[in-house]
């Protein structure tokens, strides 16, 4: 089954919409869902033109497609556990929060907190992702714990902060402090990064581009060939500012 949601023109286009109801499973029972626009509750049909093609008996066979201006829509795919969502343009904050299964593809850019506290499943972002891509919530000890986030463009600051599990793969560059407070999982940045892995405790990070402002508290241990990336990398242990036992590999 395919559900197409095309955003309607709104009187106040800058108002954020919170739409955690948009997950494949919810469309099994129809399209009668509630979302918030600012401080008002709205039905899905007030904000979207809804087209449903075909039927489904189980949620894994449901594909939700978002079209139009979706850049202010938050929480799409929150707690999603199966099925797929395709966003043709840009998507608002918190896309794929707590996601545990299924696939989200964003053809445009993603706003901040993409895949926050994600547990499983896959997020593909064809454009750029803003700050706090694949991270956690304020005060919480663990960020993303499982699954995969792949960004084909670049990310803003604090990418993969508190990463605890799963894989974060950035094809472009990451901003300031990627992998800060990392305690597990794997972070790959094909482009450049600034001050990577500050205060990391565990986990591993590979940076293929240039590292700016490398922190002074990483201990260079050896060189290693990384066959999957066809490079030789310097291998650092850290962060020794704490009891960190993480691995940071930077192209030699």
């Amino acid at each position, binding site marked *: 089954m395919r559900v197409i949601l095309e955003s309607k023109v709104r009187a106040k286009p800058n108002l954020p919409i919170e739409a955690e109801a948009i997950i494949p499973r919810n469309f099994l029972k129809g399209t009668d869902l509630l979302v918030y626009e600012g401080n008002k509750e709205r039905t899905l049909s007030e904000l979207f033109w809804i087209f449903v093609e075909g039927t489904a008996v189980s949620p894994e066979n449901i594909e939700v497609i978002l079209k139009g201006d979706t850049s202010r829509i938050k929480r799409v795919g929150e707690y999603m556990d199966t099925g797929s969502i395709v966003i043709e343009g840009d998507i608002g904050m918190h896309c794929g929060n707590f996601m545990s299964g299924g696939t989200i593809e964003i053809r445009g850019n993603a706003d901040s907190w993409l895949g926050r506290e994600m547990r499983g499943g896959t997020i593909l972002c064809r454009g750029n992702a803003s700050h706090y891509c694949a991270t956690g*919530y*304020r*005060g*919480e*000890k663990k960020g993303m714990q499982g699954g995969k986030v792949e960004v084909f463009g670049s990310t803003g600051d604090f990418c993969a902060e508190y990463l605890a599990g799963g894989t974060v793969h950035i094809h472009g560059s990451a901003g300031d402090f990627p992998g800060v407070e990392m305690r597990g999982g794997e972070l790959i940045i094909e482009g450049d990064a600034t001050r990577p892995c500050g205060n990391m405790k565990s986990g591993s990070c590979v940076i293929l581009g240039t590292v700016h402002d490398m922190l002074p508290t990483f201990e260079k241990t050896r060189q290693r060939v990384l066959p999957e990336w066809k490079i030789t990398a310097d291998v650092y242990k850290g962060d020794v500012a704490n009891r960190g036992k993480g691995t940071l590999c930077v192209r030699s």
Partner: protein
Amino acid sequence: MTEIWVKNACVIDPLNHINGEIMDIAIRDGRIVESVSDRADVIDAQRCLTLPGGIDSHTHVSGTKVNFGRYMSPEDMRAGRTKRKGKMHVTSGYYVPTTFGNSYRYSAMGYTTLLEGAMAPLEARHTHEEFTATPHQDMMANTLFDGNWAVMDAVREKDVRKTAAVVAWTLKAARGYGIKLTNPGGTEAWGFGEDLTGIHEMVPHFAVTPAEIITTMMRANELLKLPHSVHLHCNNLGKPGNYQTTLETFDIVPDLNPDRQTLYATHVQFHAYGGGTWKNICSKAEEITSSVNSRPQIVMDMGQIMFGRTMTMTADGPMEFNLHCLHHNKWSNHDVELETGSGIIPVTYSKKSAVNCIMWAIGLELALLTKNPYQCLLETDNPNGAPFVKYPEIIGLLMSKRYRDEECATLHPETEKRTSLCALERELNWHDIAVMTRAGQAKALGIVNQGKGHLGIGAEADIAIYPIRTDSVDPAREYRKVVEGFQKTRYTIKRGRVVSRDGDIIVDGANATFWVDAMVPEDLKMENDPEFIKRFEQFYTVRMSNYPVQDVYLPRGRRIETEVFT
């Protein structure tokens, strides 16, 4: 004039020797009276369990430290969120809820009076501001004196009268209720990063020992005729082998008051550890309870822990730092000049941890091994051992051996070897629970004559009606019904108004704050003591005139004046 007639109530009112009688209760203008007119609103209790409003004699719900626990825990705030609904404000938080969250949840459980366990006098205004925003319970504040310089000076001079005078001045300035000592002397030592390891060790720079502080304060407390006794958090909290410190402390407690205890020892579970390291820690609940069973001058509370995530917060700064070094989680510390300290860290009590399982068992052992329920009150040192919403589960555990056995089966195997819980057959009855959750607290806090903790004529009409039929529920078997029943009252009545029905708050709160104005002879008044004033102005960072809490902070203050001593 408002009147309520509660009919068909199955009343347990231990202080009036009523145990499960079906009777009616008449309420007029907030008090219990002989009879009401036929215009009274009628509540049919349908033979459900009806108790005096619950009293928590040691909880952390208001003030600097509690609020800091909230401030540093956005991750907890998302756990207990509710929307505004009718008279209810928005709430957030599970183990450190907002003030309204605390108030509503206590009310839903039938609690109508709370003693905040620790208030630094310098920051008392904050506590009182939060009391006002905790509107459904009458409040009172234990006032911290453990590292009070003026107190330690007087203790060193062995001057009980002067000690009493400092206490009286400070209680009045802080609008406090009673004397709290948290790791006496230790919090001062923590000012320079040290701690004390026993009650006979000298406090650095002050040449007094915890034992001297405790002894002198107990005498000062009785000299001032304060309603409550000294309220003590013993030295060495949470350290393996600390039961010896606790026993030594109990040994120096005289019996000075015929009406109530001379020492209230709080969260004793945390002070009942044998062994010498975390590896060989074991229960010494038997030793502790046998001491308490032979000393009517001591009342304790359990300090029960329950499994799950919570926040520890105490004036015991050094203990929190030690705990932080074990947990490597976030740590806050807040020392208060000339007075006390405090620390806050989040913890998770896990069934996988032998230490945590032993702690859990010790709390229950204390309650089951104490013969007189008036001497072991039920609480968790909220939120240190667990958030107070766990009280119903504790009640269930105390009333049902089967429930305990089922729980024990899921615990670390060491629990059975290093505690005696599994061997304890005792199951507490409804009356015991009523004592341990209200009557005992009222007596220990000295508020029976304020109309608290009982349902006699003239008492404040604080009443909890639980959806429990004691004639048809067997708590040993149907403990789930007991737990559920204590989670949500059918009615909570506060000072003659129904404030909560089936868990929903239905009116705005109008609580009162009790505080003690202890009288001292004219020549002992600290506000006239030039040396006291000089020291104050020199070493505090606020002026003495700006220190006392103004009356505006207690919109419904209830001043309790004591008789002047000679």
